[in-house]
């Protein structure tokens, strides 16, 4: 009788192994760095102010003896690093890297604050605020790339939203300004969709064109009209809205429950987007369009329409996020005020593995770096602020290069869908 062989595939996970070792060396290098730079040069205690006026309980200051703390963390990092070289380490490699990086950042803070005082809660509050445009920008990119449309034009869409919010807000008040910004953002999204889906413009080029157009148009109108008619560039700012009771909790209260509607709106939008993408029928179809548009087509799903809808809704989110720059922050529009935040949003999207919540986490990290940069100037640290500003960019490059984990975008990303 014939015998049928059933040989299974042999898994040789070379990439995983290499990655684990890289992370191991990285952690050990980090440990040495922390010990030598942060541990040795830390004098005195770092005092972190946690309480703010209005808290229901006034927390005492967190006092950390700088040098001992840093040496302990360095030892811990070295241990994590050494662990990577043992068998079975691959499974938790990314987790330990994340924890290690977090601890390293705390040592940096401790070192910078050694001998001085510093409002930790204030910085956390600023982190959340700064994270809003980045997280939403990342969401815009996610919504678009999940249906396989690369959106480089987030920067231009944010700028358009900011501009519209400022002008319409000056004329008709904050709420109408906000609605107008959302509509204009949606129109920009629609334009990107039309260019890319119907007219088959290369997606990168379309994004670059949208950025240039938005920058040009907003700069032109600002310098041509707004410098003369100041009253058109004087929008109201949405103030902070206290959530009763919760806002008086120590630390969390100020950070999470005493923000303006942009922060609350962002949280709601991100939650809604997550539900949409992963728990609804439309979300399943959208993701199918992004992974295998031909399959979706054969099942009667209108690939073009799904792409249009997602990109336009993404544009609306961008409009809302853009309005934050004016209606949620300074109330007037300055030329190029988004200053690259749209691109950081792209980075957050990649970091977050094309998941709305992932992008939020990444945005918080970037926002933290951003507010840290400001505080460092106050603390008079010897590190130039520019290097801290560079950190998110370098981190994105490292991630995109797959040096720590492979970032896998939707399979059909970047390719137009052409039906015969």
């Amino acid at each position, binding site marked *: 009788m014939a015998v049928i062989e059933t040989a299974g595939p042999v898994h040789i996970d070379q990439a995983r192994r290499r990655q684990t070792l890289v992370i191991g060396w990285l952690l050990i290098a980090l440990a040495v760095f922390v010990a030598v730079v942060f541990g040795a040069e830390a004098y005195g205690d770092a005092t972190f102010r946690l309480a703010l006026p209005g808290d229901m309980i006034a927390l005492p200051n967190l006092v950390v003896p700088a040098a001992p703390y840093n040496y302990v963390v360095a030892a811990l990092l070295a241990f994590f690093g050494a662990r990577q070289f043992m068998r079975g380490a691959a499974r938790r490699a990314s987790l330990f890297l994340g924890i290690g990086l977090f601890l390293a950042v705390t040592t940096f803070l401790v070192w910078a604050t050694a001998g001085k005082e510093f409002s930790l809660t204030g910085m956390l509050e600023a982190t959340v605020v700064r994270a809003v445009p980045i997280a939403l920008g990342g969401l815009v990119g996610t919504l678009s790339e999940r249906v396989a449309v690369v959106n480089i034009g987030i920067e231009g869409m944010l700028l358009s939203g900011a501009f519209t919010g400022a002008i319409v807000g000056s004329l008709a008040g904050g709420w109408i300004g906000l609605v107008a910004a959302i509509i204009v953002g949606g129109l920009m999204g629609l334009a990107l969709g039309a260019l890319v889906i119907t007219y088959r413009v290369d997606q990168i*080029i379309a994004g670059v*064109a949208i950025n240039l157009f938005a920058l*040009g148009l907003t*700069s*032109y109108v600002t310098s041509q009209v707004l410098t003369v008619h100041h009253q058109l560039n004087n929008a109201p700012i949405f103030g902070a809205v206290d959530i009763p009771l919760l806002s008086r909790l120590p630390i969390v209260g100020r950070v999470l429950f005493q923000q303006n509607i942009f922060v609350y709106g962002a949280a709601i939008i991100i939650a809604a987007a997550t539900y949409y993408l992963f728990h609804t029928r439309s979300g399943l179809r959208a993701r199918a369009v992004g992974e295998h548009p031909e399959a979706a087509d054969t099942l009667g799903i209108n690939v073009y329409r799904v792409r249009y809808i997602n990109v336009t809704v993404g544009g609306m989110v961008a409009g809302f996020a853009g309005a934050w720059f004016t209606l949620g922050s300074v109330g007037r529009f300055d030329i190029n005020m988004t200053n690259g935040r749209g*691109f950081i949003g792209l980075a957050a999207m990649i970091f977050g593995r094309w998941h709305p919540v992932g992008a939020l986490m990444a945005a918080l990290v970037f926002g933290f770096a951003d507010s840290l940069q400001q505080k460092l100037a106050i603390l008079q640290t010897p590190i130039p602020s*520019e290097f801290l500003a560079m950190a998110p960019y370098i981190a994105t490059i490292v991630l995109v290069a797959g040096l720590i984990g492979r970032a896998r975008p939707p399979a059909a990303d970047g390719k137009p869908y*052409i039906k015969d």
Partner: protein
Amino acid sequence: MRQETLSEEALTRAAVSRFDFEQLAIVPVLAVVVAMILGGGVMLATGVTVPMIGQAYLALFDGSFGSLAAVSETLTAAAPVTLAALGIALGFRAGLFNIGAEGQMIVGGLAAVTAGFSFHGLPLVVHLPLALLAGMLAGAIWAAVPGWLKAATGAHEVITTIMLNLIAVQLTSFLLRNPPLQKPGRHDPISASVLPSAQLPKLLTWIDPGLRLNAGIIITVLMVILVYWLLFRTTLGFEFRASGLNPPAARYAGMRSGLIIVVVMAIAGALAGLAGANQVLGVLGRASPGFTGGAGFNAIAVALLGRSHPVGVLLAGILFGALDAGGRQMQVMAGVRIDLIAIIQSLIIVFVAAPLLMRAAFPWAFGFNARRQGGR
């Protein structure tokens, strides 16, 4: 059943189709015209009266080609953007999106300015090439890094080059606020001035000392010829084009795609770095934040408009130089802000990159039926 024997002469007859001509000539020209018209529309919407629009466009033409001074300004502005665009076009040919020309220009300019003020007592024939080479080298490295990352890890060059652009801006701020680059005695971010022995000589000062045209334009034309020769007459150019059109086929033919990516990016970066050096050594004499004037981004439009062909890029670069020079005149004479030019430029990109759109909107300009393909 064999057809009659093919004659050798018949086989070597060139095969040029009408489609090619449309792509190469009609679309770009139409794009520019439509963009200008829409620009007029924007002006109308912001309260500029129709006669003023006419004045504005007249000033635009006058400021770009209306006098020797105008032509001098046009070519001065054209040189850096053309150089950077040559690099981007080369990248496009090899299938790479080098959005990082701006960052490469920046580091090229910084390196050139550093070489420009650091060496005393060198003759022009040594110092100037040295400074130019410094700029090219810096740009090449800044581009080779994302190239190497793409070759080694597959990291998409759009993201990495965008990030490097942002890093370059921060780097500029840092370097220009500290010695050794910062000009001694100043607290604002501005570099020390380039020594006369490293400056690109002005070409037309014997006619009128105020004319700014510098030798950079000669270098630009030389580079156009060099890039043409490289692309179409060398084995390296053959490999670039093959890799850009069909990477798997190039690989199967034995071409080392990783090496090609790095080499193309390095050359593109060198060209962009040269553009930055040109700006610093020929026009400004020093570096300060924003010294590129966004030329690295405009260069993308120029490369697209020029259909990634060196000669096309030169023509498109001159056009953009004209828009730049004319735009300044327009602002002075007609009071229309120069930012309008950015709008026109972005519209040109859209129209050139969307031939289907042009065909749908202007079917009479094209030979065959405007069949609208795409969504319902």
